[in-house]
């Protein structure tokens, strides 16, 4: 196991290198020139050149890439070009709200989706099943944007059940006060497609021979569903969960913007808007690392769920 993890971590190096290369090319090619932002109203050629020199943008590209590599190795991305705050401090303050928001959406969404999907898979063919599937299909056809706009307008403003927006330093306050509405909307946006997908996973598992064996043993349907089917169906479920993570970031970005949550999604957009390359680099590298680590974790979870999985 340890050897496997070591090898997998070692295998991340080329991917990380690729990510760095992609990022570097993208943002040196198209990323915009930050000196024009920093110069403000003073756009004289000397001022611009001076800023570029200070940011190290006048160095040859290979040397800039080397610096980038050193930053990745030390995980020290220096300071933001636009606010001059240390990138690490910036990310540190952003990661908490992001994790709280996306984490709770993911957790609640997954638990609910699995529960509902298991129920309708058990009742497959019934009116409930068809109704839930139809509602889920219709619900997922509405743009996330509409949910957020309408949710904020009607639930928070007209209904007055939630604060319009905001975020506090106290986690408890956030959980009780500010989180519920974005959480609700985030879950609604993600729930419908998940239910549909998980239901199909469960139904497919129900067709397998071992379910017949379980029935032949005299097990009741709920036991079959919860004990035998659920664990087998977890493989595609875990896979889809992992695949949904990058998309979550985009969805969360809208939630963060509308509900004033100081998270990573908003930070990315702001950094790109300001051509704040150090922040972009740091966020991308951290997310790439997180994605890769999560992939590894997923494989290890596979192993826990399914003993057939071989970790090579």
């Amino acid at each position, binding site marked *: 196991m340890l050897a496997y993890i070591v090898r997998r971590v070692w295998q991340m190096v*080329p*991917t*990380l290198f*690729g*990510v760095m*290369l*992609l*990022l570097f090319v*993208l*943002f040196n*090619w*198209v*990323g*915009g020139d930050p000196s024009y932002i920093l110069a403000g109203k003073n756009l004289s050629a000397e001022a611009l050149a001076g800023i570029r020199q200070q940011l190290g943008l006048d160095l040859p590209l290979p040397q800039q890439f080397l610096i980038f590599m050193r930053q990745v190795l030390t995980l020290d991305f220096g300071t933001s070009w636009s606010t001059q705050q240390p990138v690490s401090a910036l990310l540190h303050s952003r990661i908490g709200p992001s994790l709280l928001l996306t984490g709770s959406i993911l957790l609640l969404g997954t638990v609910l989706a699995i529960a509902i999907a298991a129920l309708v898979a058990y009742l497959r063919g019934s009116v409930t099943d068809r109704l839930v599937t139809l509602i889920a*299909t*219709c619900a*997922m*056809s*509405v*743009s*996330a*944007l*509409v949910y957020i*706009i*309408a949710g904020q*307008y009607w639930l928070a403003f007209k209904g007055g059940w939630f604060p319009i927006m905001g975020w506090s330093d106290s986690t408890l306050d956030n959980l009780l006060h500010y989180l519920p509405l974005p959480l609700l909307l985030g879950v609604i946006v993600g729930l419908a497609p998940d239910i*549909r997908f998980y239901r199909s996973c469960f139904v497919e598992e129900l067709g397998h021979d071992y379910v017949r064996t379980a029935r032949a043993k005299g097990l009741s349907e709920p036991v079959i569903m919860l004990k035998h089917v659920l664990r087998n169906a977890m493989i595609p479920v875990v896979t889809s969960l992992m*695949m949904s993570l*990058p*998309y979550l*970031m*985009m969805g969360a*970005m*809208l939630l963060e913007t509308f509900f004033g949550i100081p998270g990573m*999604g908003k930070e*990315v*957009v702001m950094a*790109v808007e300001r051509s704040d390359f150090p922040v*972009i680099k740091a*966020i*991308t590298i951290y*997310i*790439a690392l997180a*994605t*890769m680590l999560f992939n590894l974790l997923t494989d290890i979870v596979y192993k826990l769920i399914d003993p057939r999985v071989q970790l090579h």
Partner: protein
Amino acid sequence: MPHTSTTPPAAQHHHNSLTRIGWRRLRRDRIGFSALCIVGAYLLLALAAWSGLVASHWQDEVAHPYAPPTLFAGAAPHHVELNAADIDAADRRATSAAALDSSGATGLSASEDPLAADLAAAQQQSAQYRSTEQARADSLPLGADQRGRDVLQKLLQGSATSLQVGIAGALLALTIGTVLGALSGYFGGLLDDLLMWGYSVFTSVPDMLLLLAFAAVSGRGIGTVVLVMAFTSWTGTFRLMRAEFLKHKGREYVRAADAIGAGHGRRMFHHILPNVSHLLLVQFSMLTVALIKYEAILSFLGFGVGVTQVSWGAMLAEAPAELLQGYWWQMLAVTLCMSLLVTAFSLLSDSLRDALDPKVK
């Protein structure tokens, strides 16, 4: 290159190819078939809009700004309409009042204007360019937007654009994903390693960043939206196709093709591809749905279509401001219209999956 058509004349007897069976199964599936009809209707509509048969005048300002839907004309919030003439008049009043107690200049005199003579002449010749103001409607079937454009016309034109964007994006993403996935899964080895490397790099970078970066390099407009969406959504297809080609290349019918001397290209695209085409079709309809929704968010972020075009996303992007003022009709119309298509597409994907599954005999 020899002529490769091997379809025998006997095929006219309509024997049951899998496609035909799938089609028949789909026809029998009531939900799936209705979904197909709805999607078909949208496509026809889109074709009509592209060809200019309907909604070609969606940019015309035919009603008063925010004219309500006819049915709700009484219940809609009142809109105080301002017009340019009043603004002008107010401005003129202010400047002339100031001119009374001012010693300063009041503007450019004709003698100081290099174009004075030409302008005077142009005034004389301008008659041919004068146009009369059209009467504006007080209400429209689905209401009007800020500039008094017919929401129904916008909706039709927007459907066409969104469908075009969704379908083109899905096709492009599918093509990229399929070709790369096929190469990767079929050949394996170093090529697979290389493509998998590219895949893992792409999936490790947040979509949002790729999106912003691609959008920055390729300008704005439909082409960009399609490109951006394709470049960020080919990975799913790649994964799927790689796995399928990996699976199928070991299948006996592919080995049989190898045995009879079919080359790699033929085995990949003549033999395997039709056998995974049902997955591609399902993937296509799912991607189209995803991309139509994606476009809405892109438009909101300012990466949408240009001003000479309208899409559902562009219309939804106007929704927050309108909703604040109580003008709900454009948002509702777009949401319903989009929901219907997306629901139909989703149901169609389900039905296609069932109908085309070769396992189900």
